[in-house]
């Protein structure tokens, strides 16, 4: 544990999850709202980033708008084979992230490829390599509001 958050850190984390003003000196604008000098906004943000309270600071892109295709996939992997299957699935660079979840469908991962056909190609490769069906759950509609945590 590197340091505890003080009230100013919490206020800053909350404000920094909202949009950064698109101006020459955006951190000065944020500092004004919080009654902090620009230099302190930057030093606190740098520390919060280094200490891992903030994992990234920058634009959030709509992945689909950048081109490419994405698909949530699920597999029902027998416990005894789990580690072997993890290795085979993760070996595909198209697997962007992969979570073990407590359910009959116990492996959930996202495929990210250049186009929709490649989703099918990779999913079929994984099925051939593992002998386990890859269920495809493509996004049909997103109800996007935001991604915010109260610090």
């Amino acid at each position, binding site marked *: 544990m590197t340091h505890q958050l003080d009230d100013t850190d919490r206020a800053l984390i909350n404000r920094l999850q909202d949009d950064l003003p*698109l101006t*020459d000196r955006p951190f000065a604008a944020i500092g004004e709202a919080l009654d902090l000098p620009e230099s302190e906004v930057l030093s606190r943000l740098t520390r919060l980033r280094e200490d891992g309270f903030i994992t990234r600071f*920058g634009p959030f892109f709509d992945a689909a708008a950048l081109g*490419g295709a994405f698909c949530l996939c699920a597999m029902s992997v027998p416990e005894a084979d789990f580690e072997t299957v993890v290795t085979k699935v993760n070996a595909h660079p198209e697997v962007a992230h992969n979570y073990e979840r407590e359910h009959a469908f116990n492996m959930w991962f996202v495929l990210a490829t250049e186009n929709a056909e490649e989703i099918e190609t990779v999913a079929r490769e994984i099925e051939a390599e593992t002998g386990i069906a890859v269920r495809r759950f493509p996004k049909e509609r997103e109800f996007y509001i*935001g991604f915010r945590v109260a610090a």
Partner: protein
Amino acid sequence: MTLDAIDRRIVEATQAGLPLCATPFAEIGDSLGLEGADVIARLVKLKERGVIRRIGAAPNHYRLGMLANGMSVWDVDDAQVDALGAQVGALTFVTHCYRRPRALPDWPYNLFAMVHGSDREEVQEKRAQIAVLLGPACRGSDILFSSRILKKTGLRLRRKEG
């Protein structure tokens, strides 16, 4: 939706994060041979087009005390799922909310909502709030807690030639 070559270079220069300095847009411009004002104008356009959703901090849920996360899944009447999905997505504790196809007979759920909380009990309480909101339009639900991250790499824009 297409990005021109300069847009793509701005995306590539910023997808790992903005420089944490007083004039981040000017610094990005320096690295690309652009004025800071051009970078800002491009970012404004990318936001208007929805390519950029927002510019800000990605909080680390775990470090902020949100130790549990569950993927709640719901079987919602097709005629009502879009209207109700929008309401679920608007709940402050739901970070992602999607309509996805069912995989019958094993998987009757068509609405997915990611719920975060300080522990599983809190996540379950929040799940109960979603159940109340959905009411009789919901025929069944489940929640899948994550027990392990097996792989996590950020989504990255592939480099295009030229």
